[in-house]
């Protein structure tokens, strides 16, 4: 089978470099083009991953050899880029959140459904072998009926300019947990109550995220902690933990536990850094996307999943602002 022709649209999101690295290292893909509205960043990335910088996005999606586009651009451009790619018949691997409101999320969903392309939302945790095993154990009823989920997530923050755009996007971290909980429980969030650190009056760029409490239709309830509270989260490394309490037991998932902590003499005092040695979940996610494109399979997490998690984040944002629980689905 031929390798998949790929283009990367935007390197604003830090994970774009990881996707590019995975794509450049596998024989299953050919990185044909790199686009970025920041020309310097785009050229540098193209050079680094031995690809070609293309200044016009239009030419990227017109290129017949390009079968799929990775959208990891500035959040304010994601909806349009994803929509154009889908309309041009390109499969899409899209960073989350891809929209900041439901109208935009639904636009993407509609374009994807109309064109019939594969659209995969970048919920990397679903590709953790431990997460898969835990979910299977849950479905084998090893812990009985689910009572509650407690999740905590700290990922790498997008660049500042991306943060400028947003309010709800800052719940980007919580999106990953929400998705994992939806995927585990097979249920949708019914209502959400959230608090934001320091209130919502601070500048968006300083908004460190949410602590959300959610009720699922399945009756399970959950706390979703996506507060980016570490002064420099890169020091302590990424974290994504999920505890599932059932009537007959407990499942404890720690997606980024396999790391080596290194102490070193840093700029001021001793620095602690974590180096992951376990499964590279983003690499697995990219590999799975390529398989979906080549074999015409449905992605594990699609545009609808991205939309649903986004809706929870939007509801959490509203809840934190209005200081009351918000019911889902939300009225448009």
């Amino acid at each position: 089978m031929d390798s998949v022709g790929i283009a990367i649209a935007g390197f604003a999101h830090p994970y774009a470099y990881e996707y590019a690295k995975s794509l450049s290292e596998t024989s299953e893909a050919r990185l044909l083009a790199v686009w970025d509205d920041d020309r310097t960043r785009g050229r540098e990335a193209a050079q680094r991953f031995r690809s070609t910088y293309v200044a016009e996005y239009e030419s990227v999606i017109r290129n017949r050899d390009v079968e799929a586009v990775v959208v990891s651009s500035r959040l304010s451009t994601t909806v349009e880029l994803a929509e154009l790619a889908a309309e041009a018949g390109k499969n899409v691997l899209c960073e989350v959140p891809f929209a900041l409101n439901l109208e935009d999320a639904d636009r993407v969903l509609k374009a994807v459904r109309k064109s019939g392309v594969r659209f995969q939302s970048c919920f990397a945790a679903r590709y953790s072998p431990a997460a898969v095993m835990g979910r299977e154990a849950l479905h084998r009823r090893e812990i009985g009926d689910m009572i509650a989920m407690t999740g905590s997530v700290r990922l790498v923050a997008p660049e500042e300019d991306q943060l400028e755009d947003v309010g709800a996007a800052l719940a980007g971290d919580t999106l990953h947990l929400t998705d994992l909980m939806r995927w585990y429980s097979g249920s949708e969030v019914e209502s959400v109550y959230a608090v934001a650190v320091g209130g919502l009056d601070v500048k968006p760029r300083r908004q460190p995220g949410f602590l959300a409490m959610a009720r699922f239709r399945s009756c399970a309830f959950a706390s979703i902690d996506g507060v980016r509270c570490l002064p420099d989260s890169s020091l302590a490394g990424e974290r994504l933990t999920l505890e599932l309490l059932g009537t007959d037991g407990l499942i404890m998932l720690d997606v980024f536990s396999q790391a080596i902590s290194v102490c070193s003499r840093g700029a001021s005092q001793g620095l602690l850094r974590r180096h992951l040695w376990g499964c590279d979940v983003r690499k697995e996610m990219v590999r799975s996307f390529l398989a979906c494109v080549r074999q015409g399979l449905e992605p594990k997490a699609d545009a609808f999943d991205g939309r649903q998690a986004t809706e929870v984040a939007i509801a959490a944002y509203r809840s934190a602002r209005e200081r009351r629980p918000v019911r889902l689905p939300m009225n448009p």
Partner: protein
Amino acid sequence: MGRQIGVAVVGYGFMGTTHLTAWSMVEDAKVLAVVGRDRIKAEKVASRFDAVSYSTLGQALKELAVDAVDICTPTFTHRDYALEALNAGKHVLVEKPMALSLREADEMIQVADAGGLKLMVAHVLRFFSEYAKVRELVQGGAIGRPVMVRAKRAGSMPPWGVQSWFMDQSKSGGVAVDLAAHDVDFLRWCLQDEVEDVFALSHRLVTRETFVDDHVLMVLRFRKGAIAHVEASWAMPTALPFTTSLEVAGSSGSLSVDNESTPPLTIVNRRGVERFSPETRPWVEGMPFSIDPFYGEVQHFADCVINDRKPITDGRESRRSLEVILAAAESAATGEPITLQAEA
């Protein structure tokens, strides 16, 4: 300072015997009586601590030179025992939570005030070395302005709790009121801040005769802006050892401590996993007890009684913690966030 203070301990269950062990290490105090409804059981415990057993508190107070009463009974009996002791002119140390309603707490505070008596609630977490250290670091500015806290206290239903008053929400208040009481009180003290509002979700365990909330997740918003996630559970599988953890993240750093990675001794055998911290609990006779939290707690109370000092968790201070946990239980029942009244 002259003689030792005479103490009557009410209750001979887990907390009663824990307090009795602690009292036995306090030089300035002597436990004179162990009070419990079942005289035979009370006698068995009393003899271990060289005390006299009584089936009623009134009788003990009548016959012995008791200065202070330590109430280690089920929560729903706290108010009655406390009022009986206070009305008899005795200082009171009462297990947490102090009562099941603010009205009961107010009665206790009022009677203690009227009699000029000490009323202390046994919020023992403030005497745990690791928690006290966290507060010292936070207040010392080690992590800047506190922003976000995660506190957890989770285990299976304690063996003495199965088939008992613990399982009855009307008697124990449920896991939010009984267990989360520890972390909620600690956080108020650690952050030196009051809770503005609380929202909680809980699981209700329904048995044949009764029901109890056995798992709760809550979020507290403090007035100065910090938020806290507090998890308290009696619903964990029995195979899992009792787990506590605390993380505080601030504007310039973060810290964490837990009871899983810190015990200097872990024994795994057919019974399961047992973690020992002899430094914080004198499990072995002859071990240093200077930082045993229960010793620290009763010693502090004895010091307050003897030297006329204000207990760190007196009635008023503890009432504030009670207000938060009762609000959490109410929020879990109604599904609405509860805003707390600002202190007048």
